């Protein structure tokens, strides 16, 4: 039933977009991690559905990889990090959430228009979702721009990787396995390095506010 598959993939894409907006509007660090975990779970589900209905066995491996990395490993690392940095209940003051949301809508419209001619070239069942994936990437960018603290920025970075992965799956049935493994491990290693960075930032400035980094200038 290709119609139902299409609808399911569209539904997952919509949920991803919803979660991206959730990440954009969320103030609490702990809720951010929960939203990120949900995003990973949605991604796993959509990849599995895609693999099952398009008969592409390598997508199962991607789904398994996504599940292990983005639903189990990354959230666990993040939880441990906020535990040790003692920022578990951190609340960040954001610049005017409704304005950020409106900028988000503009980005979504832009992404949809941008993706419209591209998705015409694709032959995948889920080509309509390319616009949504692109919108998620841009929203994660926006999240990284509007955040001041280090951990939400890292979560924005990870969410962007999620969106890119979804774009690859929806447009071309996934990247070659080697590339996918490479990216996944890159993100994991990047995550660990960023964790070390965060500890260093706090050592130096007694805070995770990245505005302090601007002072690092040689006279």
């Amino acid at each position, binding site marked *: 039933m290709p*119609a*139902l598959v*299409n*609808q*399911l993939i*569209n*539904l997952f*894409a*919509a*949920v991803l*977009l*919803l979660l991206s*907006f959730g990440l954009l*509007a969320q103030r609490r660090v702990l809720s951010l991690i929960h939203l990120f975990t949900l995003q990973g779970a949605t991604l796993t589900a959509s990849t599995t559905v895609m693999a099952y209905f398009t008969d592409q066995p390598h997508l199962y491996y991607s789904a398994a990889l996504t599940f292990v990395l983005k639903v189990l490993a990354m959230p666990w690392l993040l939880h441990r990090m906020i535990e040790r940095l003692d920022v578990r209940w951190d609340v960040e003051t954001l610049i005017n*959430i*409704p304005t950020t*949301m*409106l900028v*988000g*809508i503009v980005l*979504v*419209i832009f992404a*949809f228009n941008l993706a*419209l001619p591209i998705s015409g070239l694709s032959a995948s069942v889920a080509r*309509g*979702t390319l*616009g*949504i994936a692109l919108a998620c990437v841009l929203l994660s960018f926006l999240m990284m721009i509007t955040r001041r603290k280090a951990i939400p920025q890292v979560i924005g970075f990870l969410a962007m990787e999620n969106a890119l992965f979804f774009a690859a799956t929806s447009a071309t049935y996934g990247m070659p396995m080697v590339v996918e493994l490479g990216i996944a491990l890159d993100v994991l290693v990047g995550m660990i390095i960023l964790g070390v960075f965060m500890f260093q930032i706090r050592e130096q400035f007694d805070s995770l506010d990245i505005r302090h980094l601007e002072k690092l200038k040689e006279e």
Partner: protein
Amino acid sequence: MTAESFIAQLVAVALAVLGAPLLTGWVNQCRAWLQNKSAPPLLLPYRTLHKLFWKESVVAEQATALFRGAPYIVFGAMVLACGIVPSLSTDLPLAPAADAIALVGLFALARVFMSLAAMDIGTAFGTLGARREMLVGFLAEPALLMVLFTAAFITQSTSLAAIVETIANQEFAIYPSLAFAGVAFTMVSLAENARVPVDNPATHLELTMIHEAMILEYSGRHLALMEWAASLKLFAYSCIGLAIFFPWGIAQERDLAGILLAAPVLAGKLAIGGAALAVIETLSAKMRIFRVPEFLAGAFLLAVIGILVHFLLGA
């Protein structure tokens, strides 16, 4: 326009008017259970209405006719709204009189009169409540319209009865845009019905109250009508939500058997919906009034994304 459809209309209105306090009682009961309190009886709203109708109505000396008339106008608007919403059957003689946009206007009419009546007395609380209500209302209305527009785009009609018929009759399909609209609609309903994240319906002892502040000066039969209208509003919103997002089980034939069959289905759906409302209310904390615009901007945004997703995915 047959005799059957008139009977269907009458049954729908009667059920709404008589059943709305029951829904309120059910939500209150669920709330009490979830909060580990001993629950008030299910029929308590009826007893309250009965008590209030037999009490003397005290009106302030400076009150004008507007203050006295407002409860009747608000109650009338809510009854009419319940008549338009297809709760039991889509074959309603009143339905062509007003589409989804007019329905939003009807709610706005009730809100304006309630706010004017609250300001009429000139007490601080009434004015404060009216201002807050207008703030919430002007933010919630566009979001509600956008939700209804999403459904209207999918079904190519702004008439609620036509929307329900189209969605219920076609083969099963998942609409991501309707999922967005559903979340937005839930948020708007919470704000419009003065439920917990926006307002607390259980107390009138707080400085943060909105709805209760407006009806503070009412007593006796006027208060009874206002309380009844609030129940009707909750009932109407629940029925709109159920009709657009879960339209299965609503009768479309012009016979009474279908309506009789639809009634228990509606009761079941309302019971689940009421319990879900109680869960939401228990899980969330009341927001500061200045967070409300953020909350409703979120609802508006979700509804707009729903429309955008509809155009992009064609679904």
